[in-house]
């Protein structure tokens, strides 16, 4: 979000795939409490899964923070994925790269972006990556 507030409600430390299950459950509960549509909750759960996988695969461990968000007009659910991994050299390229490298299927970070309303990424080589996604209540 360019501006707005985020109220963090829950946190999950991510080390392996089993933590993703916990994260998915949390985001569904939060989505339901914030009255997001079923499709929106599903998209958010999918995005969280990909963000979580990204942490497990590239950083080894990290944190997912869950919260409610508002930009003054809309309300929704935000998820912050944070890791202290190797970081991304060229963020713009990494966001395109689902097609030019890797599995070539458009999974991973680029796919997470397509599933949410807001997507922000900040990364520093050697210091880690932080991704913030938000899904608004329609």
């Amino acid at each position: 979000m360019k501006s707005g507030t985020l109220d963090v409600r829950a946190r999950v430390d991510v080390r392996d795939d089993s933590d993703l299950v916990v994260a998915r459950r949390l985001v569904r509960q939060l989505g339901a409490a914030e009255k997001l549509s079923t499709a929106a909750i599903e998209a958010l759960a999918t995005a969280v899964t990909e963000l979580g996988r990204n942490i497990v695969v590239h950083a080894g461990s990290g944190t997912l923070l869950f919260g409610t968000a508002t930009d003054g007009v809309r309300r929704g659910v935000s998820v912050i994925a944070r890791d202290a991994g190797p970081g991304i050299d060229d963020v713009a390229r990494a966001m395109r790269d689902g097609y030019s490298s890797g599995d070539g299927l458009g999974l991973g970070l680029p796919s997470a972006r397509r599933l949410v309303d807001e997507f922000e990424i900040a990364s520093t080589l050697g210091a880690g990556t932080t991704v913030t996604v938000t899904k608004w209540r329609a």
Partner: protein
Amino acid sequence: MTAREELDQRYRAALERFLDARDEPALSAAYELGRRAVVDGLGVLDVATTHGEALRNLVWGAPAHDRARRAVDAAAFFQELLSPFEMTFRGYRQANDELRRQQVALEDVNRELEAFSYSVSHDLRAPLRSIDAFTRILARDHAAALDDAGRGHLGRVRAAAEWMARLIDDLLGLARVSRADLARGDVDLSALATSILDRLRGEAPGRDVQTRVEGGVRGRGDARLLAVVLENLLRNAWKFTAKRSAAEIAFGRELRDGEVVYFVRDNGAGFDMAYAHKLFGAFQRLHTRDEFDGTGIGLATVARVVRRHDGRVWAEAAVGRGATFYFTLDRAGRS
């Protein structure tokens, strides 16, 4: 076990667990199965069939009072499995839009470049005509005022200007075959080849060349542009057999994997196949001008015409043992 059989088995087990427990780990399993199916290259219809099979056992085989609840839960489970497909689908659509935009931009740039090279070539002609005219006057009216070295230099200037004029003509020819509208029709390639060879023979009456043109070879394309192709290929064959005592040139067609392939074959100087990739680029020459004259634009022109006919062009050769140039006229070879 194939990817599909493995999916069948795992999906059924995961769905069964979900229908019993209705919890997040089971739902996560559906997501993972879907993701795996995407990576394994399975399609939506594959997973839909898998889902249908599992339903038959786990829903319709269940006690009547529990079927409705199971059907609703199974739908949620299936939706979860489909999420990764949805995700990649969105990605492909986005990537496709991006590619289309890039293609349009690329075509624009290409058109601009073609127009640019055409006008540059065209504009170079005027100053060149001046150089040609004034050096001619210099040679004719002022030769006596120059010493031998001066006349020698003047001769070189005139030769260079002539060479440049040829380069420009060839470049304009190349630009023209790119810009011309295609008027496709039925073309008698045998007749074209025969008349070109007759003309070449007329230009060099001293040469003894055995030519063989297969009769009745026809192709679908633009008659004027196909004449440019045959002219270039036959003229090349004519040129590169100049040092053969028993020169042979043949034009014909053959079937390769059910595709009609036209060829021009000679027993001339040939070339090293290691350089075959350079053949069709503009200004690329495999021989020095002392050996064989040429601007290096002819084959680039051939390639462009063939490409505009949705065909392919390639060559097979060996040094000292001749060369064969092949081309097709549309991708399916229905010409």
